[in-house]
């Protein structure tokens, strides 16, 4: 239990990813699926940021002379990776919403069942 409280950010990561996954797979509404996708990606971003973070750590900028003390600076790599992942996430979300809009224009509905029924006609 103490372990869970000390690492509460990972608990939130798992909760976010479960919500996202459930929305992507179980929801019938296309927009809700897109929202689920965004939540899932946010969970992963939080996960990566958590593994690079340290308590009371400084920004990793070399100043003056001397070798940086690795324990005292945050890992910059995970943050840079997540910048890329955010860009990818925005692009996928945009693509998903654009497709949902096209589908809505065709079937006047976001509901997966309605759309499938419409397509069978």
């Amino acid at each position: 239990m103490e372990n869970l409280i000390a690492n509460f950010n990972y608990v939130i990561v798992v909760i976010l990813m479960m919500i996202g996954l459930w929305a992507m797979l179980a929801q019938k509404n296309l927009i809700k699926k897109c929202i689920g996708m965004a939540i899932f990606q946010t969970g992963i971003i939080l996960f990566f940021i958590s593994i690079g973070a340290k308590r009371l750590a400084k920004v990793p900028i070399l100043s003056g002379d001397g070798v940086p003390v690795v324990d005292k600076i945050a890992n910059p790599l995970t943050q840079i990776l997540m910048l890329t992942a955010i860009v990818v996430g925005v692009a996928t979300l945009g693509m998903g919403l654009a497709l949902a809009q096209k589908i809505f224009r065709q079937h006047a509905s976001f509901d997966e069942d309605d759309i499938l029924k419409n397509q069978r006609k």
Partner: protein
Amino acid sequence: MTEQLPIVIILGPLLAATVAAFAAWIHPKASHPLVVTGLVASFAAALKLVFVVAEKGAQKYWLGGWGAKPEHGVVGIQITVDHLNTLLLAAVSGIALLTALYAKRLVNTELPGRQRYFYALFALLITGLLGIGITGDIFNLYVFMEIAALSSYALIAYGKGRAYMAAFNYLIMGTMGACLYLLGVGFVFIKTGTLNIDNISAALPALGQGQALFVGFVLILLGAWAKMAFFPFHGWLPNAYTHAPTASAVVLAPLATKVAVYTMLRVMVTVYSIDYILHSPGIQSVVLGLSSIAIVVGSFFSLTQTNLKMIACYVVLSEIGYMVGGAWLANEPGLTGAVYHVVADAAMTSALFMAVGCIVYRLGQAQLDDLRGVFFKMPVTMAAFVVTMAALIGVPPTCGFFSKWYLIQGAAQSGVWHFVAALLLSSLVKAIILFRIVEIGYNRVPHPSVDGNPAIPRNEAPLSMLIPTVAMALGLIALGLATSPLVNTIIAKALPATLAP
């Protein structure tokens, strides 16, 4: 000069994509020649590298020179061409080039007025696929995976109508796969502190069989499986590739899934190791079971379909089972078969979709009943089609025979008899499909050479489509004849030292 070749492979299509997008803005017809030029550069570099790798071994390239010097270590992004991926790169860039030439006529008729950005997306897709194949950095691989995926969603959505929903489902599945992969990369990063594939594989043996590493491995595998439409995740593929415009399906079906299989092979062979897999009990027999199910399910559904494109899609699904199963046998013939089949299957499905594309171009539809007399209308296309189906069935001397031979040998060596049975069943099913099409296309019309029967006018596909199709079908035979030098000089050296018995 040789040391700059690896980067040319991805720079060719990447620059072509950017320039083509702007050129299309000015003039709609300007982008096709630009994309073809980029792909020619890429294919020439990839082909040259096959010989360089066979002669001198793996070629490494550090972007911006980061990591080239010993005091840096590898801190930047590394791209690698070694024995495992060199054939794949040549196959992907070669097939992309042929498809770009093939697709021109098809795009003009299928997407009139909307072809403007098609080739830019096409080149971007190829950049992503080649990037996945060439990169030596597991996070960089994720980025290329998403470049390829985003452009393929757009290429599928070009189909309009049902294609939108198919592309949306693919987007949800593909994003889930990529996210699971990224999560797995996170686990590997926690344990090793690096993203470079060479560094990880050097660090992993000392870390043993920790739980975090195992979870990372499984997440990466699940991600790759969702991308390649392996059995439980296969739902998106048939609809996406059937409702996509034929020009998109011709490039997506052979390449996108094969590159995902390569991702799995790279993670199994280089990042983790076969040794690691053999020490994780249980998972191997589960995956082998799933592969057999994938083959049987794909084969069964390909028999129930009446649409030629749908049949081709389910054939692709069953072929995925071959490669995953072969890789997870983890013995020498099994892995050789899997690595070889990635290249062979890319060529075979490419030839299959090209032939189907020619038929659709002339007949307008691809229902089996529409094929009556097609052997008299399009004899050359159908000859290429029969050669392709023969390769998929596994008739010597085509490449399909040799890969299947290795796979069956591997399965028999490990005593995985359900996999042998599934492979043979799938050959049988493909033979039934071929005979069915021959029966409808050849026998169900009064034979025109008999007096009194109406003549059937020849209506062959245009030459710009026919030549790539025939070239690809002949390539299947050439690839089959070249099997033994390819396996001995390249694929045999891609296999790790420790293998399953």
